[in-house]
């Protein structure tokens, strides 16, 4: 309308005349007003891409909330729409001027990933009431996704990365180089534990990434706060330890020993000995279901509910000794690798595998599923490393032959793939987030002092823990972990009290075991089979279909146009139209069928003249 008000001037233009003589009152925000916006608009100092190695340590000890200055570095807010929408800032009663007028800008692009409704699927024409409901639902979804996208602004941390100079291969960068380059706090995360006495080690990080449990083959079990290097407990169970795993919190520890499954607390006191789970080889913990999945030598996959201490199901895989197991963190499906080269997918609700995938010509040695549940990496006895797409097709996306074959595989939170081959650890990275790791060129390699026996990326830290013959090695892998953590879900800095409260909440939100299925979104679908069945029953019971379309009755018309003949004519018209539609549809179907099956359908029986009486 009028000229856009200058940042300094706050009085409306009409008043300017009256006040011409007097000096305008000066507000405390006026002088600073321009400064912050300008700062906000400008990006940080331009970073040179040529730096040899840039390793951003994950997290300085202050949390992201205090670290607000970094917000400005993320130019997420598109400036244009705001200016277009609100050319003139609104005035408040007191004359104050909103420096950021209008609704908060909507990052539409960012909101796309929070969208749940697939609008590409066309719906049938719906009645107005249903349509209004649908519209409301869509609006809700849009708003929720926008809000979620807007709140991404709070994710202040950025992932680290490693970048070589021109032609330099990042795989040639050694751990020592990295440790030299990074700050002291990050350098302290690289360490070796020399534990040659108790054989190859398995290890497990707690969900918060703060605690590390390690179990040596020869009975050595220890739990420690690996960041501060404070030992919580250290015992020898005087039995072979096959696997070790934290339960939902760092206070409980499940150890698969030679005969039975034992549970210890963080003091090293044995709490339970579960004799129904014997000869366990592998352990997996499903945190949202409070289920401990165990794979045994006897070929059973047993689900133990740790919140009530009951065994939910014991499934016989009928494939001999189960050595390879991993979980899909997206849908809590357990993947088992078998000696015949197949991978089977299990849920406690079904006695049979949900799917079986033939992956290798030899037996499967190791598996890993990435955090989004999109990709599965498998390695087999045929020395192949393959990456499968888990979104319905189960087809290999890429594969590669490794000289020795990988014995252990692990995905990081951001999709880096680590493979332990003998005493070498290779790490591959993808092009971006959400893309499968490209197996062309390793991102990092590291040689250990012994053969790899356990491999896991530490959550929320750029660290890869490797258990091997000679102990434990903590490697620095820039860009491995998610830089931002959810303080309500996995808070690495939580106190004891917070942990206890979280435990209660988590238990209240426990997901029943029977809800585990291949597509978790199937729960938001209607059970069509039951629906149809019930409808059929209802029709049988009533003797007619209450939802059937009423036969067409022509509306009576005035002025003599409602003669019987014309009524009949109108009726006939509608009927004909319906008939035509039917015919058209059937023709289309026929054509489709023809296209689908060009080959003549092999009929088992010759058609007989009596067939016409069968229907």
């Amino acid at each position, binding site marked *: 309308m009028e000229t856009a008000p200058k940042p300094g001037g706050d009085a409306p233009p009409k008043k300017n005349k009256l006040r011409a003589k007097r000096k305008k009152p000066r507000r405390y925000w006026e002088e600073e007003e321009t400064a912050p916006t300008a700062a906000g608009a400008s990006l940080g100092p331009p970073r040179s891409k040529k730096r040899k190695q840039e390793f951003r340590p994950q997290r300085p000890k202050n949390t992201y909330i205090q670290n607000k200055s970094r917000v400005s570095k993320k130019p997420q807010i598109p400036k244009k729409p705001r200016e277009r929408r609100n050319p003139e800032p609104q005035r408040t009663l007191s004359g104050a001027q909103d420096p950021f007028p209008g609704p908060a800008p909507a990052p539409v692009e960012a909101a796309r990933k929070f969208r*749940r409704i697939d609008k590409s699927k066309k719906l049938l024409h719906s009645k107005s009431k*249903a349509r209004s409901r649908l519209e409301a639902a869509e609006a809700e979804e849009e708003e929720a996704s926008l*809000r979620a996208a807007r709140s991404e602004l709070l994710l202040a941390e950025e992932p680290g990365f490693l970048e070589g100079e021109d032609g330099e291969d990042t795989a040639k960068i050694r751990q020592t180089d990295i440790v030299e380059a990074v700050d002291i706090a990050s350098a302290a995360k690289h360490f070796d534990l020399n534990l040659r006495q108790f054989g190859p080690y398995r290890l497990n990080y707690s969900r918060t990434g703060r605690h590390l449990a390690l179990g040596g083959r020869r009975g050595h079990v220890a739990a420690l706060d690996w960041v501060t290097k404070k030992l919580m407990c250290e015992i020898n169970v005087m039995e072979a330890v096959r696997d070790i795993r934290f339960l939902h919190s760092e206070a409980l520890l499940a150890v698969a020993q030679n005969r039975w499954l034992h549970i210890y607390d963080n003091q090293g006191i044995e709490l339970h000995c579960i004799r129904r789970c014997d000869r366990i080889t592998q352990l997996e913990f499903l945190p949202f279901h409070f289920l401990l999945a165990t794979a045994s030598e006897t070929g059973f996959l047993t689900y133990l509910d740790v919140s009530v201490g009951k065994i939910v199901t014991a499934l016989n895989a009928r494939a001999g000794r189960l050595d390879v197991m991993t979980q899909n963190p997206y849908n809590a499906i357990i993947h088992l690798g078998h000696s015949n080269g197949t991978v089977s997918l299990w849920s406690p609700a079904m006695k049979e595998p949900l*799917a079986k995938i033939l992956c290798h010509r030899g037996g499967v040695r190791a598996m890993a599923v990435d955090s989004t549940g999109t990709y599965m990496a498998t390695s087999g006895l045929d020395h192949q490393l393959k990456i499968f797409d888990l979104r319905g097709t189960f087809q290999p996306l890429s594969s590669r032959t490794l000289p020795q074959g990988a014995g252990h595989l692990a995905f990081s939170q951001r999709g880096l793939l680590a493979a332990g081959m003998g005493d070498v650890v290779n790490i591959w990275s993808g092009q971006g987030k959400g893309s499968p790791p490209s197996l062309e060129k390793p991102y990092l390699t590291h040689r250990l002092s012994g053969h790899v026996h356990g491999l896991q990326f530490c959550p929320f830290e750029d660290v890869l823990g490797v258990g091997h013959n000679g102990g434990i090695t903590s490697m620095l892998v820039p860009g491995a972990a998610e830089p931002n953590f959810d303080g309500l879900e996995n808070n690495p800095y939580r106190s004891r009290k917070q942990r206890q409260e979280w435990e209660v909440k988590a238990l209240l939100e426990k997901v029943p075991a*029977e*809800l585990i299925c291949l597509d978790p979104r199937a729960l938001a679908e*209607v*059970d069509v089979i039951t629906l149809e069945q019930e409808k059929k029953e209802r029709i049988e019971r009533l003797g007619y279909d209450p939802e059937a379309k009423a036969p067409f009755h022509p509306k009576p018309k005035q002025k003599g146009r409602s003669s019987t003949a014309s009524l009949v004519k109108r009726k006939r018209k509608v009927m004909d139209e319906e008939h035509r539609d039917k015919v058209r549809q059937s023709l289309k179907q026929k054509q489709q069928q023809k296209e689908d099956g060009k080959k003549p359908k092999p009929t088992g029986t010759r058609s007989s003249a009596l067939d016409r009486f069968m229907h």
Partner: protein
Amino acid sequence: MSATSANSSLLTLNQSEELVDLPKDYPLSASEDEGDGDGERKHQKLLEAISSLDGKNRWKVAERSEASLKVSEFNVSSEGTREKLGLSDLLQPIKTSPSLATVKKQLNRVKSKKTVELPLNKEEVARIHREVAFNKTSQALSKWDPIVVKNRNAEQLVFPLEKEQAAFAPLEHMLGGWKARTPLEQEIFNVLNKNKQPVTDPLLTPVEKAALRAMSLEEAKMRRAELQRARALQSYYEAKARREKKIKSKKYHKIVKKGKAKKALKDFETLQKVNPTAALEELEKMEKARMLERMSLKHQNSGKWAKSKAIMAKYDLEARQAMQEQLAKNKELTQKLQAVSESEEEEGGVEEDGLLIPDVVNEVQVNANGSNPWMLRRCTSDVNEMKIQKDPEQLSKSMAYEDSESEEEKSPVAEETLLREIEKKRSLRERSKLNQDSKPVGSQEAQDANSQEVLSELRALSQKLNKKTHQTQKPKGSSLGTAPPVQTEEPSLEEEEPLLLQKPQRATTLEDLEELSKEGHSGNTELPRRAKQEQQAEKKPDDQPDAPKKNRKSQMISLQNLLTTKPPSVKSLAAPTTMELEDEDESYQKQMIKEAFAGDDVIRDFLKEKREAVEACKPKDVDLTLPGWGEWGGVGLQPNAKKRRRFLMKAPEGPPRKDQNLPNVIINEKRNIHTAAHQVHVLPYPFTHHHQFERTIQTPIGSTWNTQRAFQKLTAPKVITKPGHIIKPIKNEDVGYRSSSRSDLSMVQRHPTQLSIRHKKQLKKHSVN
């Protein structure tokens, strides 16, 4: 007994008295001659008795003896009249008096009144009452419908209903009567004063204040009234227009049209004087109208009406006249051509013979031969325009010819003319085709000629106008005429030529489209180019997935292939610590692996397993053969194959398996009943298909998946109440209805019992809807 009889006699007496009273001035009153009457009576009796003694008159009819005359004071005798006595007859003999008329009327009215009908029975009465009450009530309640609907659709309702907030006073007003008292306040005030913060003076402009005060009620009312008036006026006008449109009188319309035309001409003349440029525009418009007319063949005696008239023309003078009128109009509208030919016969006419419309028509022809003509025609729209200009010329010429003929004949047969026209067009086109074949270069010249023609036409029109306006615009017209014809060299003629000769195939539609657009008009090239770009963009993704698709297909062909595909060979791991294998090494290793797994054929096992799984999942056929039925029975006898085939009920094929095209996967098709127990299996009300409902529940509402605010909004309660507050029923004032209107529920409250159940139901339905 005696008492009753006395009573009755008294009654009769009264009646008679009344009747007698009516004629008041009756001359004979019984009381007057009572005295001597008695004596006479006695005397008469005596005489009779004496006379009867002789026995002669014994059988005389017994007569009433009391009233000697016709009228007695007690009774009315009908003796002597022989007819029934009417009430009016009683009045007849009396002399007419004005006062009696009213009485007569009254009597007539009494007579004409029918008997009062029986009152309805109770139920009927009650029903009627109910119906009336129901209608009134539902009418009264229907005004709440929108509010009910609104509340039903509202996302959230807050009770008790909030009154509109009192206009909040600005801060300055609040601060007016306030003074700093405590030391802290004083200090703050000091600081504020130091910084020249205005504390008390108002910061609001009068405009803002006015805006704060909402529009007053009077204003709103006035505004509304104004709007209403305007709307009413508009509707009146519309109605009038519609009425006028409906008038069927041709004469009327003719007059109206003529008037309009006259007015237009006048306007144009004035416009010419006042604003010549506008007049020129107007002129152009007229020109366009003429063109349209020539195109549309509206007045060529070829329409339905004209045909019908043509039949009648022989006999009907009016029809003939009408037709002639039409023709005259046509002539008038297409007259300019003649003018042109007059002025430029030497140049234009000669040219036209040879190089008539070859370009455009040819092009279209080629397009029709080559590829999709619609697309091409669209892209060469300006060329088409020229064609439009050109074609009617031809047509009109032929028409003119036709017209002259028809005038001679005086009874044109419409069909014949039509046929002839078509013939002519066809011949023209053919000729043009020939032209194209012989020399397609002529198009340019033709175009030039065309432009010249247009100019000349314009000039002619202007000259005509000038004649009308006494040559006021002569210089203008001449200037128009002398304007040099614009010679535009077509740059891409050479390109066009091969194109025409080549006759492009269907596959290259877009390419030639682009070329065409290039040569045709540089301004309009954007659109096809964009289309092309789009097409390319479409092509690109097509191309890209093409290869993988092929790959996938080949993969699907055999599992063997799938598992033995050669992985991308990588030269080196580039890691100092890894062992590098040469190709031969790799092959050696492969050989070794093959040897190691020679025994177990993993793939075959898997395929077998899959086949079994598929078989197990398939619905089974039902065999209904009865062995021994219709043939010999016994042990070990098999029913013959034909019979078995006949009685085998084939199970319907189920839906295709999910792993149908995935050779390396077995997907379990069994239903997960545990999950199904948690799924919705009833479709809620407004939805008719489960896809619709699924879409509404796809968004998670938990706080795990949503931000705090979104979570709060998604889980907001439908109704919010304030604890400890009375929720009063909604009132008129709450929703903006005037309170003075009659209370709508009073009716119901007064007769609550009168509402029947049916009506209550209906009421409920009303309120629901």
